[in-house]
């Protein structure tokens, strides 16, 4: 295994939102071509392709995109890992480069969801069969959703937050502050699905979906794509000074799954795999959480962001409530979190999300984030979690001058 880093030399994303006039392939091809142009490359330079997509993941999305951007016959992967799909595609390409199998890799994350409503393992709708017959691993005679708890995402992540609240006395108001921050951040991001600012009362009094997550504390479904061009260290040295100066180092690329923890079968444990991924990433990168200039983390729900402050070691152990109260994760705070607006307001087109997290961090490190730029950003972290579960953490660093 090479000890040389992989570098990002091209990055692009479409706005997230509702793209009525662009299909899945338009979105993916658009981001791909923009990222290649950003790297001053063409599809002929690319040795390996990894495409993350969730809802058409049995539909050869990568090859369909190739037919619009160049069918060069290269090794190509269609990647799915729930909401960690995009980060898994990045890591797939990174592994190919680290293995010496390719010098240049193209990564695309793309999704077209429209208005899908609530996601999750609700199982069959609650309807009685004619004659009860036990089926499945639990021997259930009827659908269990709503009778034996909930498996829908707003509730599952609410329960993750309330578990933390029980241990550390976090309040509904503190959870709501996460959403207030991210909506505010999105107002500065032209790529965000929503750019509306809401005060805390509006968020707390909005329609309740699964307490403590009101509708303004839940991410929307939507459409969008992001793409990155990755190169080996050796390849980077052959590129122009203009490209090298804007390149971003992948200092750590980590993917974990949920290890056994008691109770993980009843309530998915989103903490342990995130803590393991973060700790390994900090070790690989040789940087600690206090050295981060910005973090993009997986705020699918406000409750999730709050517990990940602790999981990613951004706050004192047990201190996530104090962390949000202190203003630390605001864009003018000590450690800005989700300056893009996060999943809550930038949007969460599932396959695109993980790639877009790296796009956001890389754009700040390049000093090209416009109105939302975190000045002087040199190191950033991008985190996603896919329930089931998979967790991706990447640490990126600005190229040395």
């Amino acid at each position, binding site marked *: 295994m090479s000890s040389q880093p992989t570098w990002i030399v091209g990055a692009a994303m479409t706005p997230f939102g509702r793209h009525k006039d662009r299909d899945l392939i338009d979105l993916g091809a658009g981001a791909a071509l923009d990222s290649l142009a950003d790297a001053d490359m063409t599809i002929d330079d690319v040795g390996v392709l990894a495409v993350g997509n969730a809802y058409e993941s049995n539909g050869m999305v990568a090859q369909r995109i190739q037919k619009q951007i160049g069918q060069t016959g290269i090794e190509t992967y269609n990647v799915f890992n729930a909401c960690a799909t995009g980060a898994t595609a990045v890591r797939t390409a990174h592994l190919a480069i680290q293995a010496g199998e390719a010098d240049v890799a193209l990564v695309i994350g793309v999704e077209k969801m429209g208005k899908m409503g*609530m996601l999750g393992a*609700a199982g069959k*709708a*609650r*309807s*009685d*069969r*004619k*004659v*009860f017959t*036990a089926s499945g*691993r*639990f*021997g*259930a*005679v*009827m659908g*269990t*959703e*709503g*009778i*034996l*708890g*909930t498996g*829908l995402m*707003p*509730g599952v992540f*609410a*329960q*993750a937050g*309330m*578990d933390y*609240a*029980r241990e550390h006395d976090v309040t*509904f108001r503190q959870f709501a502050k996460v959403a207030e921050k991210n909506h505010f951040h999105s107002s500065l991001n032209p790529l965000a699905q929503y750019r509306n600012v809401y005060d805390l009362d509006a968020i707390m009094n909005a*329609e*309740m*979906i*699964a*307490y*403590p*997550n009101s509708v303004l504390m839940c991410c929307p479904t939507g459409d969008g794509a992001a793409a990155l061009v990755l190169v080996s260290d050796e390849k980077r040295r052959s590129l122009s000074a203009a490209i090298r100066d804007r390149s971003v180092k992948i200092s750590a690329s980590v993917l974990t799954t949920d290890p*056994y923890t*008691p*109770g*993980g*079968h*009843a*309530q998915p444990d989103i903490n342990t795999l995130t803590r393991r991924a973060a700790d390994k990433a900090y070790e690989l990168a040789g940087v600690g959480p206090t050295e981060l200039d910005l973090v993009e983390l997986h705020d699918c729900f406000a409750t999730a962001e709050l517990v990940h402050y602790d999981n990613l070691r951004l706050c004192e152990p047990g201190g996530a409530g104090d962390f949000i109260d202190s203003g630390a994760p605001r864009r003018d705070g000590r450690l800005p979190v989700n300056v893009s607006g996060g999943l809550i307001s930038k949007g969460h087109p599932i396959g695109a999300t993980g790639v877009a997290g790296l796009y956001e961090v890389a754009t700040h490190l390049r000093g090209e984030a416009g109105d939302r730029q975190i000045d002087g950003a040199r190191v950033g972290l991008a985190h996603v979690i896919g329930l089931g579960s998979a967790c991706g953490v990447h640490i990126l660093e600005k190229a040395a001058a």
Partner: protein
Amino acid sequence: MTNPAAQIPMVSYLVLSGDGPPHLVAQRCSSCGATFFDRRNACASCGMRQFATVPVQNTGMLRSYTIVHRAAPNVPAPYVSAVVELDGGGVIKANLVGVEPDPKAINLGGRVHLTTFVAGTDDEGTEAVAFGYAQDERDSR
């Protein structure tokens, strides 16, 4: 006169008949003691393949909850989904029943106990009995 309706458990890990009150049974790993409620091929904790079916306790602690307002189709809302840590081992997801769907009425971290209710009836009149957890009196607010 009508016969009382036949009742069956809604899930196979709920035991309604036999000695004592209704209770849950778990698959407990004979090697490491990890406790599961569904059919298992091998232990998620240690990989060993021997399990014993054991009763678990009907009492526990309310580890987490959510009040679901926007529910899946055909599910009445609001209702309270709960995660319960059982005394003696095992963690289970179920509804918290007999409580107002209001955070002020719910004692997070408080004591709960198992209860059963009829969840549905099929075309032959057989009733499916489900389980939930109720807050202990002294702990309810």
